[in-house]
């Protein structure tokens, strides 16, 4: 699978290390609101509906404290990635039943011309499978530091 430079898809406005929500629905809402408030998407209802329904397919909490809620929607014209973190891990119905503190929400258009959406998901999963990366993300303070985590190593 093709590797993607994730840094090119991050945005400082969509970086939030103090999510307030304490449950799964709240986390989804808070991340969608972050995207809408920063004007990356106009219609929050459509996106919220999509990410909520997505969880019916199976939890996007893929274990070890990480969740990657994702999906395509006609309400966007480009791929958007929002990062959020909670101080206290939240029950996200994750596959390993462990609570989650690291969240990456990936929203993609129905048809992205460069076809980056699936490679982005794959690259995120691979990168976050490294314990060292998760540990750094749990402690990261600034956006610059955050970008550094994704630039310092190109994982296989």
């Amino acid at each position, binding site marked *: 699978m093709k590797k993607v430079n994730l840094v090119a898809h991050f945005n400082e406005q969509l970086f939030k290390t103090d999510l307030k929500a304490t449950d799964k629905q709240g986390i989804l809402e808070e991340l969608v609101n972050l995207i809408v408030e920063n004007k990356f998407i106009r219609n929050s209802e459509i996106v919220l509906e999509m990410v909520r329904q997505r969880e019916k397919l199976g939890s996007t909490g893929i274990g070890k404290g990480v969740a990657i809620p994702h999906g395509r929607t006609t309400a966007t014209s480009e791929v958007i990635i929002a990062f959020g973190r909670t101080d206290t891990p939240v029950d996200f119905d994750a596959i390993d039943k462990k609570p989650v503190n690291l969240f990456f929400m990936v929203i993609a*258009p129905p048809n992205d011309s460069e076809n980056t959406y699936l490679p982005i998901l794959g690259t995120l999963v691979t990168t976050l499978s490294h314990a060292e990366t998760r540990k750094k993300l749990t402690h990261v303070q600034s956006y610059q530091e955050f970008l550094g985590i994704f630039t310092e190593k190109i994982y296989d």
Partner: protein
Amino acid sequence: MIKSQMELLVSLQDLDLMIEEAYEVEKFGFPTTGCDELKKAREELASRISKPFLFRYKRLREKLKRAIVPVKNDICLGCFLKQPTSVGTRAREDDQIFTCENCGRILYWLE
């Protein structure tokens, strides 16, 4: 809560794409055991959409992978043809289906 017919149609396509791509994301380690539940939710959503809207969507989906496409800066992102500004104004006000004259896809204005 989603109210308009056009928004419901957009949501329906979102779910259809999700169901189609379930196998792709499963490869990354995302569980897809709830596929039947998702299909049920899809039918429930479809039941809230008027028959003529649903019919047009289905017809387009048979021909094209994406029946509804976003419009940005008055440009259809299905075929990149510029749409008349007046159509955009009407589309934002009326809960009606507007299609691209060039590619025939249903248009959804992003801004």
